[in-house]
């Protein structure tokens, strides 16, 4: 399945990329699995927020083909 991954703000700066497309194989692949595959050298820190298809979720969320996954730091609008 194909997943679009997006990073925002300080996390984008740290990762050095804003967006990437990833092909994953297998069933029950979670957001945490995706992070580990993309960034095996760094743990997903506790204050990173996750959205799948623009809704907040967590690392246990199972991915589906076509999902857009976003990783970003705490939000500071308003």
């Amino acid at each position: 399945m194909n997943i679009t991954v997006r990073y925002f703000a300080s996390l984008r700066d740290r990762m050095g990329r804003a967006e990437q497309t990833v092909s994953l194989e297998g069933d029950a692949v979670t957001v945490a699995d995706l992070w580990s595959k993309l960034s095996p050298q760094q743990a997903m820190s506790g204050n990173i927020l996750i959205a799948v298809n623009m809704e907040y979720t967590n690392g246990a969320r199972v991915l589906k083909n076509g999902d857009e996954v976003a990783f970003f730091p705490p939000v500071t609008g308003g």
Partner: protein
Amino acid sequence: MKVIVQEALFDPYQETRSYEENHLPPGKHGAAVTFVGAMRDFNDGHDVSAMFLEHYPGMTERHIEAVCREAAEKWDLIDTLVVHRYGEITISEPIVLVAVWSVHRAHAFDACRYIINYLKERAPFWKCESTQQGKRWVEHNSEDPGVNSKGLKQTA
């Protein structure tokens, strides 16, 4: 209910008046409460000269609208308008407007506070400030001591 996320500078008082004249039925509301968030020249002990506000197009609008719908379920509201900017913002410019109309003031006050607090907690915006030491991402918003935040789930 209307939510606008835009780059352009706006006049929050003119927006409020214009929306009221064009969308509110005359004679039905007894209270209008507005909150205007503006840019300070200081934050966290730093002098700030300018700010860039990044957001996640699509998700931003979706979550501000969700917060407004929640407020409309909790309180008896006639209408709600939210305008939030992104992009380059300079000192003293407005960043966000929350305007709420209701029959009585208590509903409008409470709903306005609810919307701005949960917008700050959930809408995906990120402030990057320009200071004398360079650019820095703001790591957290100041808290409103009057409201218990339910908080976002931390990631696994």
